[in-house]
């Protein structure tokens, strides 16, 4: 019986098994039906994580002593368009954040107006989908205050965050549902570690949506649009990375 088990059959079997497994997995990976099956886990994660805690549960907050010595920047480090560079040269004094779409009173906030509104400062951990983390202190206007001014209509279900940067010729954008939009830690940040937001971290304005991964935290914000559905925006998946690389729209895990 054990004579069958020579080194050659073991190695050959292992190589065949590994090769077959790999091409099998790659074939499955290309199958839309199998991708849809895998994506059901995203729906599961979303509902379980939302059900587990108080829906307004806060992400952990830290102290100054816990700050990362340097806060890593990722994605676009400088939008580098003519308009952006001109605005940056003026200290973003002409920057406008529009709040439009399914709202009763569309708004446009200047950089100075946002800085003079009530602020929230929070020291939180930024978790990248790639696996690294950085702790930073963010100061900004709670998004809820802006939404209260604009008065969302009942038909609004999502907020689209429009950005000044593009990657590979496509404009960056992101989206959240209203639960995260009204969360107390969801702010339009303009300061990092007490200083004006550096360009590489999203100057002059970036979103903080603390219970989700880094790619949801859109930088270089120019507009917030209330919509009924994500269809028809980009490729309809709710964000740049969701559209181009199949990242999950719900980035809680």
């Amino acid at each position: 019986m054990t004579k069958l088990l020579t080194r050659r059959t073991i190695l050959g079997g292992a190589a065949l098994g590994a090769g077959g497994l790999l091409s099998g997995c790659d074939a499955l990976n290309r199958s839309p039906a199998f991708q849809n099956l895998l994506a059901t886990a995203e729906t599961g994660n979303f509902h379980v994580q939302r059900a587990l805690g108080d829906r307004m549960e806060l992400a952990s907050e830290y102290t100054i002593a816990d700050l990362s010595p340097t806060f890593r920047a990722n994605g676009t480090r400088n939008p580098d368009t003519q308009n952006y560079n001109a605005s940056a040269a003026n200290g973003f004094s002409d920057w406008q954040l529009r709040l439009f779409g399914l709202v009763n009173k569309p708004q446009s906030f200047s950089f100075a107006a946002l800085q003079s509104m009530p602020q929230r400062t929070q020291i939180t951990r930024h978790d990248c989908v790639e696996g690294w983390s950085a702790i930073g202190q963010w100061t900004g206007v709670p998004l809820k205050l802006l939404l209260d001014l604009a008065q969302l209509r009942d038909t609004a279900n999502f907020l689209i965050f429009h950005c000044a940067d593009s990657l590979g010729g496509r404009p960056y954008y992101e989206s959240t549902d209203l639960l995260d939009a009204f969360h107390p830690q969801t702010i339009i940040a303009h300061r990092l570690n007490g200083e004006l937001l550096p360009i590489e971290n999203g100057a002059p304005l970036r979103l903080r949506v603390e219970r989700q991964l880094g790619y949801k935290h859109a930088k270089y914000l120019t507009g917030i649009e209330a919509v009924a559905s994500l269809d028809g925006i980009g490729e309809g998946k709710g964000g740049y990375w969701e559209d181009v690389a199949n990242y999950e729209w719900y980035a809680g895990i």
Partner: protein
Amino acid sequence: MQFMPQPDRSDRKIRHRLTTRIWHWVNALCLLVLIMSGLTIFNAHPRLYWGEYGANDDYAWAAVGSSQTIGYVRFGETRFDTTGYIGNWEDRNGNIQTWAFPDWATIPSSYSLADGRRWHLFFAWIFSFGLAFFMIRSLWNRHIQRDLHLRRKDWHPSAIWADIRNHARLRFHAGQREGSYNILQRLSYIGVIFVVLPLMIFTGLAMSPAMDANWPWLTDIFGGRQSARSIHFIGMALLILFFLVHMITLLLAGPWRLTRSMITGRDSKEAMND
């Protein structure tokens, strides 16, 4: 079939219950997919840290280094050249790739963080439910108490030492009933089922920003998100070690008979004398 009297098979007995067999193979598949898709995720940032934060400018206790000419793995201040295997390797088309782990070890074989995460998080659900089901079922049918429980006399250093010596001499069943597990076997099964596998689930969850809001104590238990990620990776290494030992002992103890018994559940007396 198996509920009918089978006089010609009276020398056979049930070695593994159906629930144990189903879980064993489902779990084996899940762990294979989880490890390979996990390596894809690791490739996105092949550096490990202790504490809450950790990114490129922070000190990594372990890291993979890559360039077009060399690949290496660094632990602390010690570098190991891994050119050709980790950090710098040739893909199937003969191109040099500088991702940490090579194509044959990852799902999918060409780097896609989003796809790796989809595979990982989908199979994590099956793995977690399977483990919970197996634990409850095995406590209920007394598999744990009967076959894996270590009695006080087993903990005696001389008993453990004797078992280590028997293993070193490749005598796995010296002085005990055939079909029962020896001390080292029980310890490793208990360690994997009740320590390492649950640890993988909890360190995995501790990396989730939404879980951080829901269960902040979970990340704290492990000393921070980056510590949880490091422990998650070390747990994977332990599982690979367990798998290798599992395969070596299987080869030494009778691979066909034991594999067959984990499929059919049955064992035969004459085969035991192989």
